[in-house]
């Protein structure tokens, strides 16, 4: 698949570590992702963060979206709002609200209907309420949520809740979507819908970036174009580091396995490699 990596760095994580009291949860996390341009496609980025339970994935996610203050290092993204014409993006440290975050429980405002939640997410955007509603209705139809637009979260099914939680971030005009285990607890139909949601987000804007975690390694390799494995580093004396870090990175674009319609042997080889990396961490 023809693609080029642009100069625009869309995510830069440098020497990130998070401590709770004396306990270091993650340390020395380094990541760099660039904008990908695919010939004939609007192609956003999908980054999978994989790792065994208790390896600090959720802490990493909270740090990435600015909800957790790092003990060292920083997360930087382009300053989309203050870009000057004909000038490259300036970088800024990430703050809460810069990246959309959907947790494992698809948390929503319990007192807002689907439509009210969308309107709230758009509160800082220009336009009249009518214009915003028209845009929201279009999206709700596309995402299969129009019929439940007047329902509260407790009246939605698991799949509807999840799509609402993601769409809320989409209308909030974020270009970054951090999804913590978006496939957990979904039936086969909802998994397919979720995969379609990934495609919708990626096809919406060149710079849209999904960062997600899952315990389904095959699914991660199928959807992602970049995969990071988080775990404890094996030390020369046979013990493990006390804090989790990135132990392996797979660039599926360079390997020619990203954006394929079906899983190939090359995918399965990577799945095996990821498993080995995870088991040794």
């Amino acid at each position: 698949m023809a693609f080029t990596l642009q100069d625009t760095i869309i995510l830069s994580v440098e020497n990130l570590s998070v401590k709770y009291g004396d306990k270091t949860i993650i340390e020395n996390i380094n990541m760099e992702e660039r904008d990908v341009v695919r010939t004939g496609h609007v192609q956003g980025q999908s980054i999978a963060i994989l790792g065994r339970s208790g390896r600090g994935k959720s802490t990493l996610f909270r740090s990435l979206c600015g909800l957790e203050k790092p003990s060292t290092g920083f997360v930087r993204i382009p300053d989309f709002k203050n870009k000057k014409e004909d000038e490259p993006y300036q970088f800024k440290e990430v703050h809460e609200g810069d990246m959309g975050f959907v947790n494992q429980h698809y948390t929503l405002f319990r007192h807002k209907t689907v439509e009210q939640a969308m309107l709230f997410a758009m509160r800082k955007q220009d336009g009249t309420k009518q214009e915003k509603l028209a845009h929201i209705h279009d999206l709700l139809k596309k995402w299969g949520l129009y019929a439940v637009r007047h329902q509260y979260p407790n009246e939605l099914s698991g799949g509807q809740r999840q799509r609402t939680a993601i769409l809320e971030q989409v209308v909030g005009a974020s270009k970054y979507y951090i999804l913590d285990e978006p496939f957990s607890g979904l039936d086969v139909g909802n998994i397919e819908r979720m995969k379609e949601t990934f495609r919708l987000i990626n096809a919406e804007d060149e710079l849209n970036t999904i960062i997600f975690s899952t315990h389904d390694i095959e699914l991660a390799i199928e959807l992602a174009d970049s995969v990071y494995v988080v775990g404890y580093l094996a030390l020369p004396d046979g013990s493990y580091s006390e804090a989790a870090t990135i132990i392996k990175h797979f660039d599926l674009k360079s390997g020619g396995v990203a954006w394929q319609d079906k899983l190939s042997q090359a995918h399965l080889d990577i799945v095996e490699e990821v498993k080995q990396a995870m088991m040794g961490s």
Partner: protein
Amino acid sequence: MDIKNWLRPFEKLPRREATLIALGWAIFLFFYWWLMTRGEKNLFPPPEKVWQGLQALYQEGLVVHIGSSLWLCLQATLISVVFSLLLTYLSPIPLLRPLAKGLSRLRYLPLTGITFYLAILVHDARSMQVWVLVVFMSLYFITSLLGVLSDIPEDEINHARALGCSRWEVLLEVVIKGRLDYVIDVLRQNLAITWMMLVTVESILVAAGGLGVLIKNSDKFMNHGRIMALQLVILFVGLGIDVLLNYARKTLFRYSTI
């Protein structure tokens, strides 16, 4: 209808059967009461004496007294709710947190001493009644509301922050607007305690009337029929308030699943 199901643990019965069981217990209780009060010496007055007491109370203006008690309760509740909500909603601000937490701890302080200071500050007896109830109610109300706040999952706060909400917006959306139904539920629980306090508080001022005054007078003349009738009235009015508040919560807040 399978009667065997009525004795099986955790069996879910149809609504009609559950009502039938409750009705059966009520009839049994009434019959037991009637049967046990047939003799010369009784712990409780017989139903007919209670009925007579109720009739006499009605003729002496029972409805007005109920109104007086409800009005007292309403005044105290309104002041207490405003005061408690204000303090609790400000408690996430670190500088103001000790205020709400400190007042919550004061619920262990006996009320007896407080009335002395209130008597110095408040000069008319009706206000005294209101403020005793306000003090009593607020301490418990603040305690319960602080519990509601501390039970808000971190996920809900993070969700609002991820949507770019400022800390004040988080307070408004997640704590204030997002927990309004809990306020009604807490009010319901605390009103029950206040309603129980009514007799004690109303006895401060006999001239103002109220159910507490009626029960005190009846007690003075050892009129057990009237006492029991009044207790039943207090119980049923209290239950009525409870049902009304629960109905209001469910009607006003469709999302409420407490």
